[in-house]
């Protein structure tokens, strides 16, 4: 069943078009990688889905509902959780407070579930537990990255979108993040939408892969099959203008 679908979505910054007419859809419980070189428009696309960047054109639906002009908080409340690029932690809050910010939308009733979730995040990232009462802004770069991923998981989303999860993470931690995400997919039917610059990880994990370039989708297919194919190389190194 289709969970998220985009039709002809464009994003513009003034005169610059960062995303031009992109369409794709994500099925429930799917893993979808979005890859592509620097400046391809991946982050812009994510922000447009999350509702924080305005779509210049096109239509986005989540669960069949049109969310193109919806407020970000309402999109989040529909079960879409987004980890933006560049670690947006609440620096002045403690680590644990950061984790709790997103848990309000369940009405506070499910205290037990929140506690369980917290325990499992701490389990994945023990360092966060150690620093739970420390100020989040003082964490190291990688620790902050763990925090934002943990924070997104705390909202118990149905669809999680992560913009470059491996950014600044030590390789073994990156492994753990992926393990956890894949486990959640199996346990809860979580749908994953992951932006990575390099296709390596997609090839390793498997799943579907979109390759963006110049604001457009240039390749769409099974990650393993596409692999290190000619097409990918061309996409990264081509210099044609658009």
């Amino acid at each position, binding site marked *: 069943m289709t969970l998220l679908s985009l039709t002809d979505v464009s994003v513009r910054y003034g005169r610059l078009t960062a995303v031009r007419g992109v369409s794709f859809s994500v099925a429930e419980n799917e893993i979808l990688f979005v890859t592509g*070189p*620097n*400046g*391809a428009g991946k982050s812009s696309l994510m922000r447009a889905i999350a509702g924080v960047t305005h779509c210049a054109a096109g239509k986005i639906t989540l669960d069949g509902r049109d969310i193109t002009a919806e407020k970000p908080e309402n999109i989040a409340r529909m079960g879409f959780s987004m980890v933006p690029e560049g670690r947006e932690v609440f620096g002045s809050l403690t680590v644990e407070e950061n984790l709790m910010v997103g848990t309000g939308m369940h009405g506070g009733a499910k205290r037990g579930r929140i506690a369980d979730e917290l325990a499992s995040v701490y389990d994945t990232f023990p360092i966060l537990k150690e620093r739970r009462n420390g100020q989040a802004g003082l964490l190291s770069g990688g620790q902050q990255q763990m925090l934002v991923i943990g924070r997104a998981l705390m909202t118990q989303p149905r669809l999680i979108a992560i913009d470059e999860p491996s950014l600044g993470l030590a390789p073994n931690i990156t492994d753990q993040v992926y393990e956890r995400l894949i486990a959640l997919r199996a346990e809860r039917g979580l749908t994953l939408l992951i932006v990575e610059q390099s296709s390596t990880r997609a090839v390793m994990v498997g799943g579907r892969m979109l390759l963006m370039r110049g604001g457009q989708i240039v390749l769409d297919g099974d990650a393993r099959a596409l692999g290190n194919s000619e097409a990918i190389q061309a996409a990264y190194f081509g*210099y044609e203008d658009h």
Partner: protein
Amino acid sequence: MTAASPTMSAQAVPPSAVAEHKPARFALARKTIMTPILLSLLLVAIAVLTYLTGSRPFNQTVIDVFVRVTLVVGLYIFIGNSGVLSFGHIAFTCLGGYAAAWLTINPIMKASALPGLPQFILDLRLPYWQSAVIAAIFAGVAALILGKVLMRLSGIAASIATFAVLAMINTIYANWDSVTGGTSSVVGIPIIRTIWPYLIGAIIAIFLAWAHAISRSGLALRAARDEPTAAAASGVDIPRERLVAFVVSGAVMGLGGALTAHSVGVVTPDTFYLGLTFITLSMLVVGGMGSLSGAVIGVVLLSALIQILRWMEAGISIAETTIALPKGVQEIALGVIMIVILALRPSGLLGNREVTLFQRKRNR
């Protein structure tokens, strides 16, 4: 937009070899000089028009506008380049205004009104333009001394510290009766009612601001405004660059103070306090804090707006009937318009841009 992708062909000469190809002398100055020239021409045009109309109240209005231009440009030099919002600059205007008063009032009046002044000042009576220069220097020196202490601070702490300076100077000037006349007005300052000295003052301020902005210090300070950490890592001594801007802008504010004194003929500490602070700051922010053109155009536009609203308040005759806004609506309208402008253009009318004739292009 991958046009920026690097090519590996650049196995070129190491940078040092290319460094011989320096741009021509004054290339930077030549490239940016259109801005102050255009801004000055704008002011000259206004002045000539005013001169031609011959209306005395309008003449006085335009004099006010030029004084404000001087002050707001002075603010811009520090605030625009350093990003530190200063609430204290009007203190330098106060210093300048009183200095001009001390130097130009008839010695007989001075001896009775301000007996606490040192004898050599009591005996002195200078022409207004000399006093204006000295006032500017005096304010600049004060800025140097205060800035030495204050420029270590940044952000809102610096804003409050500068405000504290303003409040201190205000309290001192409002109570040091023998030297400043206390809260009572200092009178006898020669009033200059021709427009030209004010025009010249404003143009001097504009060129000073421009020269500072393109200087090494100006560039380093603008960099530190956005990213102090990275600027320090680039070798920029932030407090020092701030101090430079503080002194230059302090001097311009002092000049503005002298002009204020000569345009009205009386000074009181009150003239140089919160009211003036906020109106000048507003003009700067509405015009665009990060641009010299914004500073000048902000003043001109807001002043024009105020003037139009005043005419409307006084009543305009359309087809035999006079329509007048109720008294007091002018200020409300001004506030609303300012909010609307800022809501539509949060970084001011001009943002970071400058007016030039040509598109900004690097000569490479």
